[in-house]
Structures are given as C-alpha cells and as structure tokens.
C-alpha cells in the first residue's frame, strides 16, 4: 500500500493529486450551479437589526394596550340618560350597546330546552301533546322542613322533648343559636338533670343461653363448620 497512514501525510498526498489534476472546470461549474439554485439575497438572510426588533416590540405593546383599553371601555356601564333640563351637547356621547347577558335569555339555550306547558299553551299546542315534556312540580325540601315541629319556633314549649324538662330550648329565637348549642351540650352531658347518667339496660329473654345459635337452640344439628351448640341448647326449660 502506497497510501500514508498519518493524517498530515494523507493530506499532502491528496494535495499532490489535486495539483496533478489541475482545475476541474466541470466541478467548479457544478458548485456555482448549486449555489445559484439556492441563491438567496444576502440582505434577506441578515438577522433583524436592533431598530427593527424594537419597532416590532413597540408595535406589539401598542396593539396589546389598544385591545386592553377597548375591552375595559366595553365593560363600563352606560352613560346616564339626559334629562330635558340639562343642555344637550352638540355631539351626544356615543353609548356603546350593552352585550346581551348570556345567562337565562340566551336564545341558544332556549332553543335546546324543551318547551314548558305554559309556553305550549301560549303557542296554542294542546296540553296532551306536551304530556311527555310536562315537568312535575317537586316539593321544596327546605320549605317542607320548616313544617316540622322540631324546627318550628311557634310550636309550644316542650313539644319535641316532652317529659324531658327541656322544652324551653325550643323557645329560643333563631338569633340565639350559640346559647342553644351550649344548652344542648349540657343536655347531652346531663340528660336527667340530677347528675345521674343512666341508660336502659338490654333485656335478654329468659331461656336463651349466652353464646348459642338459634339453630342449635331449636334442636337442629349444626351444619359442618358451625360452632356446636352447648348441651343445654335445644332443651326446654321446665318453666316453658
């Protein structure tokens, strides 16, 4: 192999070959044609200068400020009406038309909603045809709750907690809710009023032993895996 190994010698080798070849006019034309094919004006390739950049930024700020002012002026209330006593200006101020409130009067929403029976009556549609769209009135739960005796302020004292001795709690006005809460807390702590706190004891019927199941109690054999009944289970007591 005659080709050198080092990069420097390889470059010298290629330079000597290039020198021996001479100028390749065809290749030179090819390069020129390729450059001309993508010819771009140098001015167009230059990046934006400082003045151009600042002009663009200023234009953007001005545009944003204009849009913001227009939006703010649109939200302001309409000018008051001129009375006859006040002098009329030569050029009356322009009052911007208020945008329609898009809450309940939106025609788009009304178009989608089914007509109510009242509307159907106005429109002359028979009531039977609107039966499918009839909206049945539902009771207002809060209005119904006000009829409960425990929440009625006009109910006689002791109505809800008759016999407990604390019917006066219901006589309080709605504005005295904190006092009511305190009295209620006291009622929970001391329900009998004499300091004794007693709850009714659970009554276990006679003849039912503790820990027995009801099947074993009536003499049936327990199922597999079921806890067996004690010996006394299933036997009738002499009292029964």
């Amino acid at each position, binding site marked *: 192999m005659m080709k050198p190994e080092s990069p420097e010698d390889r470059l010298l080798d290629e330079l*000597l070959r290039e020198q021996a070849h001479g100028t390749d006019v065809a290749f030179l034309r090819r*390069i020129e044609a390729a450059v001309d094919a993508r010819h*771009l004006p140098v001015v167009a390739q230059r990046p934006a200068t400082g003045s151009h950049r600042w002009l663009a930024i200023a234009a953007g700020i001005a545009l944003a400020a204009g849009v913001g002012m227009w939006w703010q002026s649109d939200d302001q209330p309409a000018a008051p009406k001129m009375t006859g006593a006040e002098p009329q200006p030569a050029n009356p101020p322009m009052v911007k038309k208020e945008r329609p409130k898009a809450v309940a009067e939106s025609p788009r929403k009304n178009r989608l909603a089914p007509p109510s029976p009242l509307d159907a009556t106005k429109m002359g549609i028979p009531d039977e045809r609107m039966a499918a769209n009839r909206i049945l009135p539902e009771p207002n739960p809060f209005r119904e709750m006000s009829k409960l005796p425990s929440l009625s302020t006009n109910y006689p004292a002791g109505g809800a907690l008759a016999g407990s001795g604390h019917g006066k709690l219901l006589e309080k006005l709605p504005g005295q809710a904190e006092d009511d809460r305190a009295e209620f807390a006291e009622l929970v702590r001391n329900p009998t009023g004499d300091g004794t706190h007693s709850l009714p004891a659970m009554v276990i019927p006679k003849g039912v032993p503790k820990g027995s199941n009801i099947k074993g109690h009536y003499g049936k054999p327990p199922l597999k895996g079921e806890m067996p009944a004690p010996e006394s289970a299933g036997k009738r007591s002499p009292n029964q």
Partner: protein
Amino acid sequence: MIHPDVTIGHVRIKAWWNVMKSFAIALSLPDMDRQQFSELIRDHHRPLLAYARVLAGQPERARDLVQDAFVAAWQAIARFDVTRDFGSWLRGIVRNKWREDCRRHRREVSLGDPELARLEEAVRSWTSDDREAGLLERLAECREKLPEALALAVHAYYDDDDRDGEQSAASLGINHATFRKRLERARIALRQCLEATI
C-alpha cells in the same frame, strides 16, 4: 498595482498579493455579492476538495461534501465572522457535513477528534500567511526544490492516475521497496518545505 506573478528575489509578491486579496475579500464579506463569492469558490475549492478526500476517502463523496459546504456557506454568509479565516470556516462546514453523511449512511467515522485536530493544525501550519489560496502554488514551488530522484518518484506516482506503486516503480526501473522509501522521503521534504516557507 503589482502583478501577482512578479517575483523579486526571495520576496514573493505572489504570496503577498494573495494575502491582500484574502483580507480584502474578508473585509467585504458583509456586503458580499455573488461575484465575490465565486472568487472565493475558485480560490478555495481545490484545497478543500483535497481535505474532503482525506475525510471521506472517496472522490465522489468528497465532491458532494465540498459542494454542500459551499452552498451552506453562501446561505450563512451573513453570519460569517470576518475576523476568522474563511478557509477554516469552510473546513468546519465540511467536517459537519461529513459527520452528518456518516450518520445518515451509518458509515464508520474514520478519523477521530485527535486526528482531525492534527489535520487542522497541519493545514494551518502550511497556510498561515496566504491561507488556502496559495497552498497549491507553494507546493509546486517545493516540488521544484526536491532532489531529482525524489522528484521523479513523485512525478511517477502522482502525475499519472492510472499507475499504482508497482507500475510507478517499474517505470523508474527500481524495485517497489526503494520506490516506497523515496516517496516517503519526498513527502517529508515537502512538509518541511511548506512549514519553512510560511
């Protein structure tokens, strides 16, 4: 203005002419028109082609790399730093195009970063004053200074593309090993000449 071919003693008017021309072109780059860029292409395309052949290894790939590099340089000419060497900028573009080509065609990168650095250093050491524009002319001058035996070996091997090493040795009437040794000595002498004449 002095004609570039005029030589007075050891002062190479031609080399100074090339230096002045390169600086004038570099200073006028921001307002460069298409005609000036064509002049740069004419001055730089041959050394750049040799450089691309070292990278790519194949003449046709090297031509494509050089062509793409000039197109990219023209498209980005407004961003060129006039304080830099135009040839060095072009070599950087060729390197990037070559790496991109290797990635696209999944070819192995034959030269690593140390070899590329040595290559760049060699080019700069050979072209520090008149840049790439006069490199081939200085190489021709150095060839003329070679001893006859070495000059014949260089002529037999490089000036005829159809000959390989053995045929060149046969044309000189020497064996292949002697021819190879003479060729190596000729390369060393040429490198020393190029580095000494800057």
